[in-house]
């Protein structure tokens, strides 16, 4: 489904700002991959580059989604292909209601794919169902998007969008940051209920904690812009126990060698 080959990326217009230094990764249909790494490893950058954030530019390598390169595509075009990014810090958008915005998102996708737009009635029904499923306070979604939401409410709102948009590949960028255990469990339940042989996930996280609830098929350790180790769920437990120190030391030794 997703193939990343030798991906290098930098911050736009800043010299010597390379953050991703040659990433190779392959995510098959139905798989859940966890990307773990210390602060500054580039894991959040990777999530954003995959979705096409304009602050970064790809300087080398390629990313394909279902066989086609996506690096020239705008973020909305990637979304239309079935990609989704749950944000670490979802934007607060005054005056824009979640309902209105999600309807616009679905309409845009339908239009891009030459499909029929969902009627307002059907959309309302779907929306209400998902609001209940995700457990968002219904009065909250009548307010401006994320404005005045707590950290947990923002993440729940990200899950609502995930549920409504039903992407083929969902990338979760440190969705666990700032969440208490109850909120974490709700997010994890949302993700788990959406796991299917047709849908893949990339879960970016600093801590192993989230992976207690969302069991990954593959775990990657990202250090200084490179994947330094790939393994099964046991790798996450190792990190939980030993931290990232050995990887950082190895990376430092490699850089000095």
């Amino acid at each position: 489904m997703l193939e990343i080959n030798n991906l290098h990326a930098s911050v736009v217009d800043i010299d010597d700002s390379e953050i991703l230094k040659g990433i190779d990764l392959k995510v098959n249909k139905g798989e859940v991959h966890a990307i773990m790494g210390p602060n500054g490893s580039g894991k959040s950058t990777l999530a954003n580059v995959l979705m096409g954030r304009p602050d970064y530019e790809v300087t080398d390598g390629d990313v394909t989604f279902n066989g086609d390169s996506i690096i020239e595509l705008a973020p909305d075009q990637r979304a239309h292909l079935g990609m989704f990014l749950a944000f670490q810090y979802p934007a607060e958008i005054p005056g824009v209601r979640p309902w209105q915005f999600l309807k616009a998102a679905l309409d845009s996708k339908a239009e891009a794919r030459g499909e029929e737009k969902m009627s307002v009635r059907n959309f309302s029904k779907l929306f209400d169902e998902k609001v209940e499923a995700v457990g968002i306070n219904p009065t909250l979604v009548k307010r401006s998007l994320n404005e005045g939401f707590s950290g947990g409410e923002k993440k729940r709102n990200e899950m609502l969008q995930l549920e409504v948009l039903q992407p083929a590949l969902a990338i979760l960028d440190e969705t666990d940051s700032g969440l208490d255990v109850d909120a974490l469990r709700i997010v994890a339940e949302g993700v788990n209920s959406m796991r299917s042989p047709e849908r893949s996930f990339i879960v970016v996280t600093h801590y192993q904690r989230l992976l207690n609830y969302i069991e990954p098929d593959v775990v990657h350790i990202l250090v200084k812009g490179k994947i330094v180790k790939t393994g099964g769920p046991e790798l996450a437990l190792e990190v939980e126990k030993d931290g990232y120190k050995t990887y950082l030391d190895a990376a430092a030794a490699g850089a000095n060698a």
Partner: protein
Amino acid sequence: MTLASTPAAVEKFAAAYESHASDSASSPEWLKSLRQQAWSTFSELGLPTKRRGNELWKYTNLQPLAAADFEFGITGTASLDQIKATAPWDDAWNTVVVVDGNFHAELSNLHGTAGLTAGSLVEAIANGTGNVEQQLGSLAGQEDYAFTALSTAFIDDGAYVAIADGTELEHPVQVVFVTSENNASRASYPRLLVDAGANSSVVLIETHVNLAESAQFSAPVVEIFADDGASIRHYRVQMENESSFHLGTTRIAQQGDTDFTSTSFAVGASIARNDIHTLLDAPGASCTLHGLYMTHGAQQQDQEISTTHAKPGCSSDQFYKGILSGKSHAVFSGKVIVKRDAQKSEAGQKDLNLLLSRGAEIDAKPSLEIYADDVVAAHGATAGHVDRDTLFYLQSRGVDEEAAKAILIRGFAEEMLNEFEPEALNEFVEKVTDERIPVLLAESDTIGTA
């Protein structure tokens, strides 16, 4: 005399003034003398210029107005269908229609609501209705301001609205000022006098539109008197054609425990000024002045907003939002004056702008002049671009860039649009906004800058 007039500018209006004065020989003496005084004030002032030291016009060049020719007293036809298609309308409202400065009973929709007098100003003057003699020109006309002086020199017809003591009107009262289809470039001085009695309550909608497509010059003057305990919810809709000059003035005098709340929606004209001054003249008065302005092309919109706290225990709030594109220009000049005796005053002042193009310019001058010592006041002004992170967020959900920008602009306007509560009015301003956003976006070039 403080400012030398441009003789041509005064000259331009002189012939019309003379002929208007001779045509209105039958006016009551007090009105004739009011006009004469006002004309002499205007003759001294002339049209304002940008000359140094003239802070009020520092950012606004009226040369195009001074250079243009306008006729006075032009009239033409307007049909009810045309007016309904151009202005907000609800049959339940009492609507007074003023075409080319004259009240038109056949186009107005008046229900004979108890406690409400609404209709022609010239009739109210002739009949000596209510407080018209004491009130007309007493708030606007005695000051050294060219456009109120000019308007007062030409006082003729217009609209008169009076709400009897203790009357709480269920439905809004609208006054529509419209120019007829006649495409002659005319000068008009629409006048509205509102007398809200003690403990009365009214929703007042003031609408300025054109049927004419040519350049018009309009200097409307609205005077509002709020007697003790009166509550006035005012809306001002200005969407004249984009060749026109709109120099509007609103003056409000508030007595004790009155509430005046106004929201303006300003999208029209080539050069437009909304000059509004409220005097909080007795304890417990509160005044809220809000508005949304949108400009594109070479439009200019000025908000000249001032509130004077003259007595203790009053509160005021000024809050404006602007969306600017193309090579347009907006000015927010907000002033709050708290006089020495006005202790326990509360005042807020804010102007937020969204700039969609490099060529657009906002000059924001929020100012507080506080002479009392026990006052709570805050002010601020910002100008920003559409936020890049927010745009990415929307795009990542599949909304294309243009639609995402439109959603963000609409979101910025939303809180002001929500203030337009009467349903037909709300639908009207939302529709105009939704139609205007693509126009603004077509002239936009700064989106995506952080």
